[in-house]
């Protein structure tokens, strides 16, 4: 199935901003994180279709996954 992966802030460095990916059915976000060589503790916020899920979430075809390190401001 196909999912859109978006990386932000430092997670982009040496990787990409946005990419479509073919992933096996039943994949979890953390499988993608691992395949991108992102240390799991570097992902602070994981949104799937704009909602906070955590990286254990099982993805569906067409999902948009947005991954952030710790960020902040005001």
């Amino acid at each position, binding site marked *: 199935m196909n999912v859109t992966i*978006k990386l*932000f802030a*430092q997670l982009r460095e040496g990787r990409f901003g946005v990419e479509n990916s073919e992933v096996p059915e039943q994949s979890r976000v953390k499988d993608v994180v691992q395949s991108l060589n992102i240390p799991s503790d570097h992902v602070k916020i994981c949104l799937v279709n704009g909602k906070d899920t955590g990286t254990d979430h099982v993805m569906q075809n067409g999902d948009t996954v947005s991954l952030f390190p*710790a*960020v*902040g*401001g*005001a």
Partner: protein
Amino acid sequence: MKIYRINMSNLSSTIEEVPDEWRLMGGRALTSAIVAKEVDPACNPLGSKNKLVFAPGLLTGTMAANSGRLSVGSKSPLTGGIKESNAGGTAAQRFAKLGVKALIIEGIPPGDKYYCVHVHKDGVNIKEETELLDKGNYEVIKTLTDRYGENTGVMTIGQAGEYKMSAANISVKDPKGHIRSAGRGGLGAVMGSKKIKFITLDDNDGAGIEIADKEAFKNAAKIFNKGLLSHPVSGDALPKYGTDVLVNILNEAGGLPTKNFRRGNFAGAEKISGETMYDTIMERKGDPTHGCHVGCVIRCSQTYNDKNNKYLTSGFEYETIWGFGAGCEVDDLDIIATADHECDDIGLDSIEMAVTMQTAMEAGVISFGDGPGILKLLGEVKEGTPLGRILGNGASFTGKAYGLTRVATVKNQAIPAYDPRSVKGVGVTYATTPMGADHTAGYAVTANILKVGGFVDPLQKEGQIELSRNLQVATTFIDSCGLCIFVAFAVLDSGDVAQAMVDMVNAQYGTKSSIGDWFELGRTTLQTEKEFNRAAGLTSKDDRLPEFFSEEVPPHNAIWDFTNQELDSVLPF
């Protein structure tokens, strides 16, 4: 420490001892206590009964990291209630080093003359000012730096303050000679009403800061400093990307108000994001990170250059970029940076003006997406044309002038950069803070979006009331210390850092109070502020969001669904 008091009615000044009741107050706690005690809540904010109060925080001037913030208090011409507006820059530490706990300015001089005030170790001098009238803040700061040297603090109003516009701010010179602002609530208009164009500060031979237990202070300051630097938000993300890093995350989460709060995401977000800003700054040889005052270890500020690598603006914040950007559907960072520069120069709150521009677009004065149109309208404000005077009085005033109902304000103050329907915790803060819509008053974006200090689902009501209340109390204490709000990330995530913050205050003032005791100062300050507002005529009906927030906002089709009873329970005093 002393209180410096100026009476503009007869151009006199006095130096007073600090009354006991104010000894353990600073920053917002102190400005609000003084305004509540000395200002008639029913007065006209631009009349002679109002006062303008400047106060450094409890920790300002010490080696405590990020403790150099300034509080400015008054009755607000924008909200009609009490106001504390907070700024970085070089003034607060000078007040502290002079041993000045607060500067209180009262009265209005007879006649049309304008004045300037010089603050120094022996008191103040008040002089007539003619040369810098009608000038923008950049020119004022440059001229005064040339006149008095690099080491002079400056607080100034631009043309907007002279016109006494409700969106007028007070600008404070930063260590690089650029501008930080006590932005919100129209306090520049109060300074203008008192006929003061600028205030300079010379801290030479000041009395300095007394610390009761220097060793204990040093130890706590070390833990605090280390805590800020080792937190990933204040140690890594803020220095690199600045606050604009929030564009992308709010956009992804559906909380980035777009086209005057019609959507929660913006197609042009990437082009105005912190990541793009960082790349642009590096490419144009700007400076991605510096502090707004000496002793800031987080350094979220930056200088943004134009296409020719020439200085365009600094302290270029997420809220400004959101407001002139997504809010107005403008995806050109250079135009937004120019609008930021103009706001700083004219002396306008960039949040109020950005929402005012959204309102002007709503009215059809210019169309959504018209970046050059924004700059043209800011020019009208600078010139003081009839249209400019409408816009310069803020979003509510502009909405009224054009008969609109879709006007994003609470207590007449513009709602900033987080949609209250899809980031509900901050919506509760907008509605209930005594300040009028102000994200910094209880920044629930932390737990709602950033996962700092726990997690509370931004789309659900559960937990938001308590979250907003606790943050409002804690923030009021942080504001009273003179600490930058960005210390809160580490304070919320680490008990040790929170303890170190309180240990520093105890060591300085010889007290032995617990965190809870000090947070009580936050609570009582909020209570004082609410009482002032009630006496000024504000009621619980003013603790509400505009009706249009009952409409669904895509992409999550979230609505604003708090009951009046729920909102009234946030600060139940």
